[in-house]
């Protein structure tokens, strides 16, 4: 999964997609995930990282990540593959 080119994300969690003109807001956890995607981390690596730092069960995290990646795809922020 790759973050689309030119997607701008600010410190406040404001995301702008220059290709579509849409803007979005994401929370701190979302920012962290997008940062890791930008670093080229895989879904598994992201999962392991969050599990090592945050108080969350693996099953819940996987469900939440699935939903988040689905929305990133819906909003054309990431490309699969």
């Amino acid at each position, binding site marked *: 999964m790759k973050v689309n080119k030119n997607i701008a994300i600010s410190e406040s969690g404001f995301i702008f997609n220059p290709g579509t003109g849409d803007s979005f807001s*994401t929370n701190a956890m979302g920012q962290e995930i997008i940062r890791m995607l930008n670093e080229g981390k895989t879904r598994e690596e992201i999962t392991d990282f969050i599990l090592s730092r*945050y108080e969350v069960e693996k099953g819940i995290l996987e469900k939440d990540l699935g939903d988040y990646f689905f*929305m990133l795809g819906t909003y054309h922020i990431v490309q699969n593959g």
Partner: protein
Amino acid sequence: MLPYERPIITRYNPGITNKFGSRVDYFPFTQIDGVPVKRIIDEYGSPCFVLSERTIRDTYRNALRAFSTRYPKVQFAWSYKTNYLNAVCQVFHQEGAWAEVVSMFEYQKALQNGVSGDQILFNGPDKTADDLRTALHNNSLIHIDHFDELYLLSEIVREGGKKARVAIRINMDTGVYPQWDRFGFNYENETAWEAVQKIMGQPNMILTGLHCHIGTYMLSTRAYHLAATKLAQLALKIKSQYGHRIAYIDIGGGFASGNTLKGSYLQGSDVIPTMDDYAEAITTALLGSGIPTTELPYLYLEAGRALIDDAGYLLGSVVAIKRLSDGRRATIMDFGVNLLFTSFWYDHRITPAQEFSRHTEDMVVYGPLCMNIDVVRENISLPLLNRGDQVVVHRVGAYNMTQWMQFISMRPNVVMIDREGGVHLIRERETVDTLNQQERTPAHLRANPQQ
């Protein structure tokens, strides 16, 4: 380890405001009358109804003050159908309220709660001959709804014994839409007067009161003013034609609670009249009606919703969160329209019972039933909720604990918090046995013939 928050992303829709605009609640609702919500759920399960005795008493005393400081003779009668849990009724009775019932089962409840028969107002269109005999025997106030009932009662009083103390229910045009003309006798077309004449001609019936109930969730105090004026005029007419003095005028109920009706642009609590507004409209009508001060009738009130709604809370938990095919967030709660019948017409306020961050999501809130109409809120903006999170639904004291359904799941525990913060179980949760004890399975259909 750091605290975890589910990642979310929301698109800004031009023109549609964000969290600063749409958020209503900035703080979690963690306790009721000082008792932690979490503790109640730990001890009594989720979902769970909670009633605040303090709020009931405060609300009642405020209503009584509003009317009795304006009018010399005021009597409230607790509307059993609104919430007939015995503990609730007893709070009202301790405060001095009589009982207003609309069925024999409610009537029996009132008697069992220690209400004296002559302090029960018996309303409703469906009273059987036996019901009427019981009411007559106990000297209760029988509010006649239609001519069939009037004829039935006149036969019963001929059986001898006591005289019936009766009132007639009257419907009228008060500028309210829809006009509730299905109950009682109509004022404008003289049917009400015809009923008065028939009763005055019955030696064994005493026309004691005049009753009306103009609607429900009434936002207009002017309609009450009009209704009280018309009843007072009728009382004056009865006095002048028959020399008979009406003992009481029962203006019914229908006062609005702070809930927000679906389709209303403003919040219910911002638009409803106060109890003082209602009292002002009704009492000025009676005081200015021309009835001499020494002959003023008692004013009876049957308020239900406005006296109990605020005192009731429903505690519940998040069962699941999911996403609908159109991308909307859906939250499934462990309570639905089976327990929250009023969600068919109110946009109930729902508040998380634990800390939350500044982020919110627009969502549909569903109940747990396997049926499509089980929707608690069609669109609400709430902080991020996770499975197991607890929420508080506000203003659920009226009608939910009488109209609830045994559909798919059983009714949960109901607790009351007393004025010292003590929590009392006032109705135990139903189990499969609750249902089964009423059932009779023929022998040849039993799984276990020994049953």
